[in-house]
C-alpha cells in the first residue's frame, strides 16, 4: 500500500470516529435493528432506500471502524465529481464509486468499478431508487441493482430500510435537524432467479413495517 493510500484510509477512520459517529449517535440517535444480520465478511451488497446524504454515512457506520476502507457506496459521477472539493470529499474521504448516469460512452461498462469492489471481496452500498427523492417517500427501484446482483449471483444482497434521515436532512436542505432515525437490516438474499428487483422492493417495504412511522404532518 502506498503512503498516500494509508493516509487516506487513516483520515477516513478519523473522520468517522471523531465526527460522523458522534454526530449520528449523540446528536441524531440511531435505532438499529437486526444488526447481526450483516455478514461479517465480504463481498456483500447493501441495498437501501434513499432519502438523504446522511444515508451513506449511516450505512457505513454500521461496520467496525477498521473496515471502513473496504466499504464503497455507488454514487452519481455527475453529482459528486462536479468540483474538486466535492470530488476529494466523496472519492478520497468517503471512498465512493462514481458511476456515469448518462449515456454509456465508448462501450465501457459503467458499473465496472462496482464489480471491482465485489471482486475484491469488499462491501458495496447501492441505493436502488437511483437518487434521493421526496424525503421519506420510496420511489420505484431502478434495474441497476438487478443487473449487478444477476452478474454476481453468489454475493448476498442485504435489504435495509432507513427512516428519518429525510426528516433530518432532506434533499435541498443544508441544515440538519435532529430526529431519531431507524436503520432496519433485513435477511440477506441473492440475485439469482426471476423478479429480483421486485423481491428486493418487497423486502425493504416489509422492513418498513417494523418501525412506527411519524413523518410529516
Amino acid at each position, binding site marked *: 500500500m502506498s503512503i498516500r493510500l494509508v493516509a487516506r484510509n487513516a483520515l477516513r477512520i478519523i473522520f468517522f470516529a471523531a465526527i460522523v459517529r458522534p454526530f449520528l449517535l449523540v446528536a441524531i440517535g440511531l435505532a438499529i435493528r437486526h444488526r447481526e444480520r450483516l455478514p461479517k465478511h465480504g463481498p456483500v451488497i447493501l441495498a437501501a432506500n434513499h432519502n438523504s446524504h446522511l444515508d451513506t454515512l449511516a450505512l457505513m457506520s454500521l461496520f467496525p471502524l477498521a473496515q471502513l476502507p473496504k466499504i464503497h457506496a455507488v454514487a452519481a459521477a455527475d453529482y459528486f465529481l462536479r468540483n474538486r472539493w466535492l470530488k476529494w470529499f466523496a472519492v478520497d474521504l468517503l471512498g465512493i464509486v462514481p458511476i456515469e448516469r448518462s449515456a454509456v460512452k465508448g462501450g465501457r461498462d459503467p458499473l465496472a468499478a462496482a464489480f471491482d469492489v465485489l471482486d475484491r471481496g469488499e462491501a458495496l452500498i447501492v441505493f436502488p431508487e437511483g437518487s434521493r427523492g421526496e424525503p421519506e417517500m420510496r420511489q420505484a427501484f431502478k434495474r441497476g441493482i438487478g443487473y449487478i446482483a444477476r452478474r454476481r449471483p453468489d454475493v448476498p444482497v442485504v435489504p435495509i430500510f432507513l427512516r428519518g434521515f429525510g426528516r433530518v436532512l432532506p434533499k435541498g436542505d443544508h*441544515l440538519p435537524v435532529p*430526529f431519531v432515525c431507524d436503520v432496519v437490516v433485513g435477511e440477506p438474499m441473492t440475485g439469482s432467479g426471476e423478479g429480483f428487483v421486485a423481491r428486493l422492493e418487497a423486502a425493504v417495504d416489509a422492513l418498513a413495517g417494523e418501525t412506527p412511522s411519524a413523518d*410529516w404532518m
Partner: protein
Amino acid sequence: MNALPDIAGSIGLPAPILLTLFLILIGLAAATALVWLKPAAGDASAASKQAELKARIGSWWAMVGIFAAALLLGRVATVVLFAFISYLALKEYFTIIPTRKADRVVLLFAYLAVPIQYWWVGTSWYGMFVIFVPVYMFLILPTAMVLRGETSGFLKAAGTLHWGLMIAVFAISHAAYLIAVPPPAAPPGTGAGLLLFLLIATEFNDVAQFVAGKSFGRHKITPKVSPNKTVEGFIGGLAATTLLATVLAPLLTPIGPLQGALIGAMLASAGFCGDIVMSAMKRDLGIKDTGTILPGHGGILDRIDSLVFTAPLFFHTVRYFYF
C-alpha cells in the same frame, strides 16, 4: 469511626447521600443476582419475559451509574446531565409526533431552548428559569413559525411543539434546579439530597405501583388509556412511597417525617398522573414505546413520564415551604 465522614468530606457529599447511593447499588446487585440465578424458563414466552427483565435491570445499572457519577462529580456535571436528558427527550418527542416540513428551522429554535433553559439553572436565575419556556418560548416559537409563512396546520403544530418543550425541557429542568435552589447558608449537599430524594421517590413509586398492580390488581382505573393501571396498584404504590418518604426525607433533606409522608403521597399521586398522561399521548400517536434507547424500558420519555409531573410539583413545594 471517623473514616466515613472523612471520605464523605473529601467527595463533597454528606454521608447519608453516599450511604443511600450505596444501598441502591446493593439493591440493584440483589435484583440482578435474583434474575440471573433464576432457573432457565420453560416455555418461549417465559424465556422472553426473563430476557426483558435482564435488559431492564441492565438499563437500571446504566441509569443509576450515570446519575451517581454526575452527583459525585458535582453541581455542574449534574446540570449538564439533565440538559442532555432533556435534549434526548425532546428529540424523542419530535421523532414520534408528526411535524410540518415548514417547521424544520423552528425545531432548531426549540432545541436551542435546552441549553438556554439549563443556563438559567446553572446560574440559579430563578425568575428566568421559571418563565423562559412558558412565556418566551411560547411567544417566540409561533412567531418563528408564522414568519415561515405556512398557515396550514399552524395551531396543531404550535400546540404540539410547545407541549413537547414543556414536558421535555421545562418540567425536567426542575429536577436539575433542585441542586441550585438552597441558599448558600444551607448545609452542603442539600440540593443533591433533594434531587436524590425526588428521583428515588418517583422511581420507587413506579416500581411499587407496578409490583402491587401485578400482585393484587383487580379494578382498572383507566381501561381506555392504560389497562395495566389498577386501583390496587395505585394504592400499593401510594402506601409504599409514603412510607419510604417518611423515612428518607429526614435523612436526605431538611423535610421532617410528617411532611415527608405528605410529600411522598403527593409524589405518588403526581407520578401516577404523569404516567397515564404520557400513556394517553402514546395511545393517541398509535405507538407502544417512545423509543428504544433504554432496553427493557423503551425510550427516555417512557422512563421519565412520572418525573415530568413530580419534578415541578416537588420543586415548588420545597421552594415555597423551605427556602
